[in-house]
């Protein structure tokens, strides 16, 4: 493995749009070549090297390339977007679209991220040590094909719209979430280890939701059907099992309707 080390040296006036910060793009390039990659700040065309010191070396392929950014990227968008392999580590915060449209590899942000983290993700792993804003693992506007695979783990809290239009993969929020979990989902798993305010599983067709804490307002479209023991993320627990959204359409399998599952930890 080879590592490209980046250190932020200048804060942009606005925000940097960096589709290029990805092992797929860096692979096979020298630090000098990488520093010349185009980044945009609105209309302004800049080079990556205008904002980061870049050192180290890249691997021949994305798989063999690690990227380590030592510093704050609060004003840097699209880190690790569309990547297929390798890794990106940010020793600080990152802005929107971390791991958007990601297909493989791993991303680790040691601070917080803004919204749209893991947008339309298909594979790979994202780990955020801090909090995430809204729209974690959701679909791009209008697309019915949301997150399809991979894992997103937020060690802190997250806002609204987690796993909207999710089709597959796993999202884990270690702390609390606000509203709208797995809205319109047709698959995938969302685990909220803390509390959720409301609107869990609205318009959900299929998929699984686990809430370890409390749900302040349960939707009327969810019906409790019993208690189950489940082992989730290595923890065995007793859950109240709800199915829903009963207001939504559901596919049939062998004549029986398939519902979304909501598992609420039994107190």
């Amino acid at each position, binding site marked *: 493995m080879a590592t490209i080390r980046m250190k932020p040296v200048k804060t942009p006036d606005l925000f940097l749009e960096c589709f290029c910060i990805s092992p797929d793009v860096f692979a096979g390039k020298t630090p000098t070549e990488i520093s010349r990659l185009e980044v945009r700040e609105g209309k302004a065309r800049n080079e990556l090297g205008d904002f980061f010191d870049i050192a180290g070396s890249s691997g021949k392929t994305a798989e063999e390339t690690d990227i380590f950014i030592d510093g704050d990227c609060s004003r840097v968008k699209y880190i690790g977007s569309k990547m297929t392999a390798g890794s990106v580590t940010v020793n600080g915060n990152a802005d929107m679209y971390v791991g958007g449209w990601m297909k493989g590899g791993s991303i680790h942000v040691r601070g917080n991220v803004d919204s749209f983290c893991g947008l339309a993700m298909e594979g790979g792993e994202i780990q955020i040590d801090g909090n995430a804003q809204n729209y974690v693992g959701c679909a*791009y*506007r*209008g*697309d*019915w094909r949301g997150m399809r695979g991979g894992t997103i783990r937020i060690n802190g809290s997250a806002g609204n719209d987690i796993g909207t239009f999710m089709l597959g993969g796993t999202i884990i929020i270690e702390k609390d979430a606000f509203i709208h979990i797995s809205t319109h989902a047709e698959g995938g798993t969302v685990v909220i280890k803390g509390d959720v305010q409301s609107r869990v599983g609205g318009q959900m067709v299929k998929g699984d939701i686990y809430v370890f804490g409390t749900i302040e307002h349960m939707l009327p479209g969810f019906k409790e059907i019993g208690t189950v023991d489940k082992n989730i993320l290595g923890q065995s627990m007793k859950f109240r099992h709800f199915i829903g959204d009963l207001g939504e*359409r559901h596919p049939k399998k062998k004549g029986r309707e398939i519902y979304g599952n909501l598992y609420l930890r039994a107190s």
Partner: protein
Amino acid sequence: MAELLIKNGFVVDPSQKMNGDVADIAIRDGTIVEKVGSDAKVIDAKGKVVMPGGVDIHAHVAGPKVNAGRLMRPEDKLFKSPNAQEHYRVEMGFSIPSTFKTGYDYARMGYAFVMEAAMPPLHSPHVHEEIHDTPIIDEAALPVFANNWFVMEYLKKEEIENTAAYVAWLLSATKGYGIKLVNPGGTAAWAWGLNCLSIDDPVPFYDITPAEIIAGLIKTNEYLGLPHSIHIHQNSLGVPGNYKVTLDSLKIAEGVKANNKFDREQVMHSTHIQFHSYGGDSWANFESKAKEVMDYVNTHRNITVDLGCVTLDETTTMTADGPFEHHLNSLNHLKWANTDVELETAAGVVPYVYDKDIKVCGIQWAIGLELGLYAKDPSRTFITTDHPNAGPFTRYPRVIKWLMSQKAREATLDSLKYCSKVIDATDLHGIDTERTLYEIAQMTRTGPAKALGLSHVYGGLGPGLDANVAVYDLDLNNMPTDPEEIEKAFSRALWFVKSGQVVVKDGEITHHGNKRTVWVHAKVRENHQVTRDIQDKFLKNYTLGIGNYPVWDHLAPNPYVIEVDGEA
């Protein structure tokens, strides 16, 4: 603009029976002429194919439902929009391109004219605003009539003269081109959530049948002597077994003769016939009835059709057939837009993925091509994709490739997941017909221009016609063995001259052209009853004033008006 000479190309122009003759095309001030002076700018077309500009008889390119499709599908743009050419407007969207992309892409393919296939009259200012913003290509729009309260009320009483007076008024008010029928009666039924699935289903409340609406509008059309015939999207679109309804509808035209001064011979244009050539009685035993439908068309000269070929893309369906879109939505559960338009029509929009891994989609793809290959008279069978319903218009070159190359068809057939089931349900695998460039020119130029009553402007390279000339990178004496080369050549014209102006060079836009809006002004005797009826409905039932209804002239700043004397 002055003079231009396109030299030494292989001219393929069925309007002059030229099949690859090496000839020069001379242009002066936007018109094709016998010859030009020695100062004329010369375009060397040696070894290349020269054709008249393309004529698209049916596409949804401008207006409220097209725009509803654009609006509700941001995902049709994300990562799917090519970067704009420098100094030109941005080009957004794949299945429903922006107006700028629409104009540019048609020009790149060498098309000179496109007919917007369904204009809701109430929204005609919107249609014309979009046409206004679509560069280069000339456009006209067909207002929809077959679910209109006036039309149903007059035709119920068999009042052809009154229907004609109303049609003439509406064509002028909306700057429309001709009479479009979409799911006659069925869309009116949809206003109550219902449909008319056969031509004898009575329309709720109106006590008239689709068959009567179709027959009445054919009579009206020929009474007025409009340049185009009625243009019909039949009942029961997209339903297994619908070919019977299709044949029933086509039969309504039997014995009717075209009455017009525009060299048009047909009295019915049946559009996107692919969607109407279905056998079976469910999606499980769904099969092709292309042969049955085309056999009928082949033997009835007063009918023209366009194909509506499925291109196996992710696209956006949109039609004034409101109940069909609702039905489609119940199959794929994706987002669904609908607009019912007071007194006039409705429309629906649903995204659709023609997936190679789905049997039905493969069969639909095959049916479109079968129809194109079974046609005995290519000048009555036109290439369309019912853009964007069966695929975007930017796939015409691909359809041309399939029609011209059995090898290309077989390659696609092989790539289908249910290849053998598609082979079982269709005849495509056994058809070895390969369309020639001459036939392609009939199907995309001469034929549609004639059917639209526009052969005096488009579809040919004879002197006096509008100078719309496309030069393609194809050597007639040495046609490519790789069918992909055919698709490539038709996707990006080497040169395209639109109304005498070079607008494309090497497949790139070089000029914004001088686009025109074409519409029909039909003169009829003053009809007090119809005038009173119109005023009455605007007072009682419409929600806008009659004075604010007719489209302003300045929305069509470069009009090309075809005068029709309906009194004669």
